[in-house]
């Protein structure tokens, strides 16, 4: 009896306390002061940030596999982009060396050149012109093609005097072709050759390559998105029970989603870093052969690699793809998990 009374009064006290609290309608919402504070917000994100990394570390093999796939997928379009960039650099280096070569009739010598130049200029205007005697041309031929033995066999020098015209670099291709046709009509000139087409072709090819790189980059971005989305999907599936319990005890979708997004962030960043590493490795391997090739083309332009904007852009792309990929997958997947008991 005595015991019962104590209990009852305890209950009454509790009820009174509850009523007092209940007097303010939003009091129980105010009860947890944490959660709504700015510090709490950042702490929650910081925790999820490392939690996301921890999830990757718990599955090292699977994570490494995914990161490598992302790295290769990102390295391929970036590598192609670099190849094109270097090709373009090469083409630009030759741009102002667009030239018209005039192979003169073999009966003419260097002494006839000034006279001929005057006649040409009277027709096509002032030009910059360089004359190569047969000797100089042969030396150049030897140097460029390494066929000195073959030349020795010929005995006498078969090469004519060659005039090289350097037209205005801004001139249109059609104008240059017209000029070439005019020059071709000169009886002293056996052959007039416009060395323009291959530059144009190279430019067309690099333009095509750029377009292809863009398409490739888009496709591989989708591949990265899907890879990250898929690993997020698997992770959600693996944690189905945990998510159901979290929903049951009142977790918001944002709370449940957060560690998955940070896992996506980490996958994207490490995948992009892997891509940078792979490209750097490839450049290192290609450096020697490319230098040799450039020397052959008398080009001293350095191989252009990953600069700061490109590297930063790749990392940023990795982050965006990672977060976006997991966001899409997790949103889709979380809707399907309805807590049940």
């Amino acid at each position, binding site marked *: 009896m005595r015991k019962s009374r104590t209990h009852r009064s305890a*209950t009454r006290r509790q009820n009174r*306390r509850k009523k007092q609290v209940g007097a303010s309608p939003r009091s129980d919402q105010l009860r947890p002061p*944490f959660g*709504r504070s700015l510090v709490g917000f950042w702490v*929650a994100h910081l925790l999820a940030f490392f939690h996301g990394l921890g999830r990757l570390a718990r599955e090292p093999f699977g994570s490494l596999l995914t990161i490598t796939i992302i790295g290769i997928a990102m390295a391929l379009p970036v590598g192609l982009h670099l190849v094109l960039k270097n090709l373009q650099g090469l083409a630009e280096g030759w741009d102002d060396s667009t030239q018209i070569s005039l192979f003169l009739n073999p009966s003419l010598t260097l002494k006839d050149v000034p006279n001929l130049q005057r006649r040409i200029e009277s027709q096509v205007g002032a030009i910059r012109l360089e004359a190569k005697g047969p000797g100089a041309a042969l030396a150049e031929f030897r140097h460029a093609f390494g066929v000195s033995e073959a030349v020795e066999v010929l005995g006498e020098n078969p090469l004519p005097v060659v005039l090289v015209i350097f037209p205005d670099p801004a001139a249109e291709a059609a104008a240059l072709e017209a000029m070439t046709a005019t020059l071709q009509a000169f009886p002293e000139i056996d052959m007039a050759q416009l060395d323009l087409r291959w530059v144009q072709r190279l430019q067309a090819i690099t333009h095509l390559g750029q377009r292809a790189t863009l398409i490739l980059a888009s496709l591989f971005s989708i591949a990265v998105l899907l890879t990250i989305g898929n690993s997020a999907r698997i992770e959600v599936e693996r944690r189905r029970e945990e998510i159901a319990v979290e929903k*049951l005890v*009142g*977790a918001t979708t944002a709370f449940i989603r957060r560690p998955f997004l940070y896992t996506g962030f980490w996958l994207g960043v490490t995948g992009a870093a892997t891509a940078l590493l792979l490209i750097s490795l490839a450049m290192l391997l290609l450096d020697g052969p490319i230098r040799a090739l450039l020397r052959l083309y008398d080009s001293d332009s350095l191989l252009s690699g990953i600069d700061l904007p490109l590297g930063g852009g790749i990392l940023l792309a990795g982050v965006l793809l990672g977060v976006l990929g997991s966001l899409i997958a997790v949103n889709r997947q979380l809707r399907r998990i309805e807590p049940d008991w």
Partner: protein
Amino acid sequence: MLALNNVSKRYPGGHEALKAVNLHIEPAEMVFLTGHSGAGKSTLLKLITRLEQVSGGQIMVDGRNVSRMGEREIPRHRRRIGVIFQDNRLLPDRTVFDNVALPLVIDGCHRHRELQRMVRAALDKVGLLNRERSYPMNLSGGEQQRVGIARAVVNKPPLLLADEPTGNLDPDLSRDIFDLFVNFQQVGVTILVASHDLELISSFNRRRIKLEHGNLISDFIPDAEESHP
């Protein structure tokens, strides 16, 4: 604390789990919900936690209309209700401490000292303070269920729901669990326990309501003088 007005639930396919149920539970009341499996006990609890939406009628919890809550309000609503499951629903890869701390972390509590204090208080109430570093699978069934209870009460919800909390336990352990509920009632928590262990229930002199085929067919209210043993 809890009011159901004409609540009905019809599932797609036509099955009527609840038919115009009316029920009012006062704060700090402890109520047993009985009935055969399929009578609608679990459905009732799911409607209260808004795991499912009513087909008709309305549910009020602590003055809030549950049936008219938007999606964004539901998580906060669930944090004000502690739920205890038959199979305890503990996360096997987390320690007892981390399992119990989950509702607090979800509620945004990141101050470790505060978290520790509240988790230990909850574990102390269920008598498992010394097991906070264990993993659920290293505990007995009764201990696991008590960890589940600690998780349900750790953020001091005003309402506790238990769905067959002793379904997997032997009679002695079951009594321990119910005694724990009585303790919570005594500090002002409202408790609704779904159970078909009639023998055990009748040994507690508490209000009993019975569901049958979705109808509330009896509401036994004991003599007020004896409602607290």
